[in-house]
């Protein structure tokens, strides 16, 4: 068989966290003026990782998202980047899911729709909930190996082997691991800068309806395991982080003097050590 079948699950329609505010009292999202939604940005790095493998070894890249119908636009964007197909897993029964119910839905959907996949490639985490639960939980549902902080990979197609390079930020080291496919990979978020969106590919996605909707009539997932009913997580309490008191000093004048002043003050405060 030729090439790789790579599934890239993405989170569509996450709020742009740099552009939203939380109400200081209720901790709810302030929705006035509209909350800007976007594709989880780290999923674009994961998609880039997958597309590079496809460019090198052939095959196809399929994106998939469990989201409300409005997620379609964001999946079109993944086709614009180069995904061959996109699937929107959408059904009312999936609503209100925590990470456990979501990972169950994603894992079983992949099993049912693409039983012969080689790789599932995730983004490192999402910008709105930052749990990084999804790849680990999906690996667990599917009983497959899971490697994270991946930055690069090489494949030996004939042996169905993959050699993954991962980057450990704190240690500043690279490690390589060899696995028998299929495996689950999550991609280091500061690697694989995503490619531009292609006009013709996005036009094709729109004209040919390349984003396919799949509901639970097709998937027939256990109702007790999905959506709110399948979600044991409850948010017990939210506390605000206290802002750090700053001294807020402003130095006006000559930049050379400013630099001296800054160094002196930082040294005094113990922030830097003079050479």
């Amino acid at each position, binding site marked *: 068989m030729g090439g790789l079948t790579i599934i890239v699950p993405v989170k569509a329609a996450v709020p742009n966290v740099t552009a939203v*505010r939380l109400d200081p009292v209720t901790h709810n999202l*302030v929705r*006035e*003026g*509209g909350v*800007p939604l*976007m594709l989880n940005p780290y999923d674009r790095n994961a998609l880039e990782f997958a597309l590079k493998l496809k460019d090198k070894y052939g095959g196809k890249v399929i994106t998939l998202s469990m989201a409300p119908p409005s997620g379609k*636009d964001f999946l079109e*964007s993944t086709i*614009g980047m180069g995904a061959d197909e996109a699937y929107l897993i959408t059904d009312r029964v999936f609503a209100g899911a925590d990470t456990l119910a979501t990972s169950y839905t994603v894992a079983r959907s992949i099993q049912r729709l693409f039983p012969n996949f080689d790789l599932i490639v995730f983004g490192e985490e999402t910008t709105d909930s930052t749990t990084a639960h999804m790849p680990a939980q999906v690996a667990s549902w599917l009983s497959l190996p899971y490697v994270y902080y991946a930055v690069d990979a090489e494949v030996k197609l004939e042996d169905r082997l993959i050699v993954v390079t991962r980057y450990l930020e704190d240690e500043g080291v690279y490690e390589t691991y060899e696995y028998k496919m299929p495996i689950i990979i999550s991609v280091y978020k500061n690697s694989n800068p995503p490619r*531009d*969106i*292609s*006009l*013709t*590919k*996005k*036009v*094709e996605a*729109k*004209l040919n309806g390349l984003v396919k909707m799949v509901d639970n009539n097709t998937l027939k997932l256990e109702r007790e395991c999905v959506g709110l009913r399948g979600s044991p997580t409850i948010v017990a309490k939210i506390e605000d982080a206290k802002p750090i008191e700053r001294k807020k000093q402003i130095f006006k004048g000559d930049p050379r003097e400013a630099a001296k002043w800054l160094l002196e003050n930082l040294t005094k405060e113990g922030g830097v050590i003079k050479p």
Partner: protein
Amino acid sequence: MGGTKFDVIVVGAGPAGLTAAQQLASRGGFKVLVIERGKKPGSKNVFGGRIYAHVLDRLYPEYVKEAPVERWVRRERITMMTEDSWTTVDFETTKVEHKSFTAYLTNFVEWLDKKAEAAGAVVVSEVPVDSLIIKDGRVVGVRAGNDEVYGDVTIIAEGINRLVLERSGLAPPKLSPEIVALGVKEVIKLSKEEINDRFNLDEDEGLAWVIAGFPTHYLPGGAFIYTNKEAITLGIVLYLSYGYQLDVPIHDLIEEFRLHPMVKRLIKGGQLLEYSAHLTPVAGINAAPPKLYGNGYLVTGDAAGFLLHLGILIRGGVDFAMESGRLAAEAVTKAHDLGKYDEDTLSVYGRLLEDSFVLKELKTFRNAHKVLIEPRLYSDYVRMINNLLRRYFEVDGTPRKLGSTLLESKGNLTLIDLARDAIRLVMNL
């Protein structure tokens, strides 16, 4: 897929482009592609806060129920402001014949997008068009990265920063500072009750307010305040050609304006929701590219200079853009009936524009910017009016008459200046 071809390509999903697309897709049954560089239609649009609705009456009569209207403007104010004083003309009417409303432009453009897509137009965002494909002197499509898409005719609705026109040699490189202004805007959340109380408005009633003088540090330009349902928008527009005279960065101007005693109490307790900045064509028709149509293309909206914002004189933008989009669609339909899209058949666009309110307004105010860019209007006159009234209203035991107070208040201005400026203003506005 090299074979992607459309009847019409529209560059830019703003009010002009989406109106053209909707009209062509719904009425003419054209196969239309709209290409937008922002994350979604509307995400790159910025305006002051008001839409003149007369153009919607014709295009989408259902807008009254459907469009994301914030408040209907029923009250207008013009203020001459100094650091410590302000003089306001406050106009109210119960007899509104031609409506205007405040809105979030992003929401409004999203609504226009739904209309265009419902009519069958294909709208693709997140893709910046790099240039036009020109073959044998005619525009035959667009280029984005390595991709090319072809269309019989291209409508350029790319907005004020008309990079596609410039790169394709259809507009002079770089806008000259005289014809553009920089706008900076904030949206501040307040409760509906606070807004109604502080601005003396009823439910759904809106206020449009322009302020000259102190907000731009007495340079040509102005400030504005609009009321939304549960937020107010305020901003500064500064003629770019005077930017170099500004003693602080423009973002400090908006800060100072917000902290001015008149504004401070109006926005007390408010929460900043949004901050944005954008270029705007000030001089309307003078900002137009050399040609508004040619072989295989038409130019609409801001890219064509269809906007009139002269600091304190604001006549329209979104309405001009939508009307020019509608006319572009009509021109394309007419040219289609003639069987080709060359400069000759598309010249009907020029004639339609001539007969429309867009060019009539713009031509009426063609020279207005030359008068309104007179720095005295924003400095000496603002100070004079406030000094005059302060002295007139203050009682300190020295009797004053209006005439002598005027002479005391006029500062640097000579009586000849006063007479000459008065005549120029009346002649050009």
